[in-house]
């Protein structure tokens, strides 16, 4: 079955996108990402040491852009200007590739997104030629605004970044999925495999996660679990679940031919 995820005109076999933060070392990062099967991986953009520690290993040597689609993000930015500057640096770093993840935070305690600044940054970035995948609140109205601006994927939170609380408002996600003409990916909040499966069963086009894998007791095993959960959830969505009934009086085994009748 050809069921690829298409973002900005490019097809991907995996609907699981993963972050590269919070791992013990680059070896564990690479092993977990290989186990997840993810093709799109997010990275942060930060100041390098300027000669104090020459020869320090580089993340992109462990995860070469020739093999993975690298999604530079703006994690840690609290206004549109910093986010735009960060992504212009990310584009230069990755030799001009335009796909990026926009994320503008509003509160350091909860990491809840700042939607006015997110909308402002999205406008500037789309005009500047970026393909913007955008982290946002699970607000269908603002999700629509981001789509109208020209974002290539809408990525509402399932719950707060790093919380592992799972899908706390499936109904808002459904509203966003039902109206969107671009892919909708849950970004943030997934805690374990069943959360990822539920997101996919709701009709999400993909799931982006980091902490759920990196902070599992066994990250590589959890990465493998997430791969299966996303695939299982996707297949269940496509298969179409049976309706929920309180009871049915319709057993799965024949009611005729019982012995002793």
């Amino acid at each position, binding site marked *: 079955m050809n069921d690829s995820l298409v973002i900005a005109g490019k097809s991907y076999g995996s609907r699981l996108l993963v972050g*590269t933060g919070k791992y013990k070392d680059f070896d564990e990062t690479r092993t977990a990402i290989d186990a997840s099967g993810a093709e799109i991986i997010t990275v*942060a953009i930060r*100041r*390098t040491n300027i000669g104090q520690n*020459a020869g320090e290993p580089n*993340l992109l040597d462990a995860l070469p852009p020739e093999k993975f689609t690298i999604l530079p993000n703006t994690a840690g930015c609290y206004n549109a200007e910093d986010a735009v500057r960060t992504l212009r640096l990310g584009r230069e*770093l990755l030799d001009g590739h335009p796909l990026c993840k926009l994320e503008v935070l509003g509160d350091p305690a909860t990491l809840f997104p700042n939607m006015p600044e997110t909308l402002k940054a999205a406008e500037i970035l789309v005009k500047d030629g970026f393909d913007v995948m955008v982290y946002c609140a699970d607000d269908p109205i603002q999700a629509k605004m981001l789509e109208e601006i020209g974002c290539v994927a809408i990525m509402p939170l399932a719950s707060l970044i790093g919380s592992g609380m799972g899908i706390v408002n499936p109904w808002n996600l459904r509203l966003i999925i039902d109206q969107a003409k671009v892919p909708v990916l849950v970004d943030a909040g997934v805690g374990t495999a069943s959360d990822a499966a539920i997101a996919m069963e709701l009709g999400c086009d993909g799931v982006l996660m980091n902490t759920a894998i990196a902070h599992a007791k066994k990250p590589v095993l959890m990465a493998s679990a997430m791969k299966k959960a996303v695939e299982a959830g996707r297949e269940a969505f496509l298969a179409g679940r049976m309706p929920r009934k309180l009871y049915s009086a319709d057993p799965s085994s024949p009611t005729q031919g019982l012995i002793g009748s």
Partner: protein
Amino acid sequence: MIQVTINGQNESLDEGLSVLALLQGRELAGKRLAVERNGEIVPKGRHGEVMLAEGDRLEIVVAVGGG
């Protein structure tokens, strides 16, 4: 000597230094990084020709683990 700010730190550099020469001096040339000078990207292809000037503010960044 000129005074510049690199990644938020004040530094004294020789005059007539290009971005490329600075990167070479810090063993950063050829690495996967990006340079911004006074708010504008300096494309890789121009590192050799863009000369640093008094008061420049440079950001030199790399990709690190993130979500």
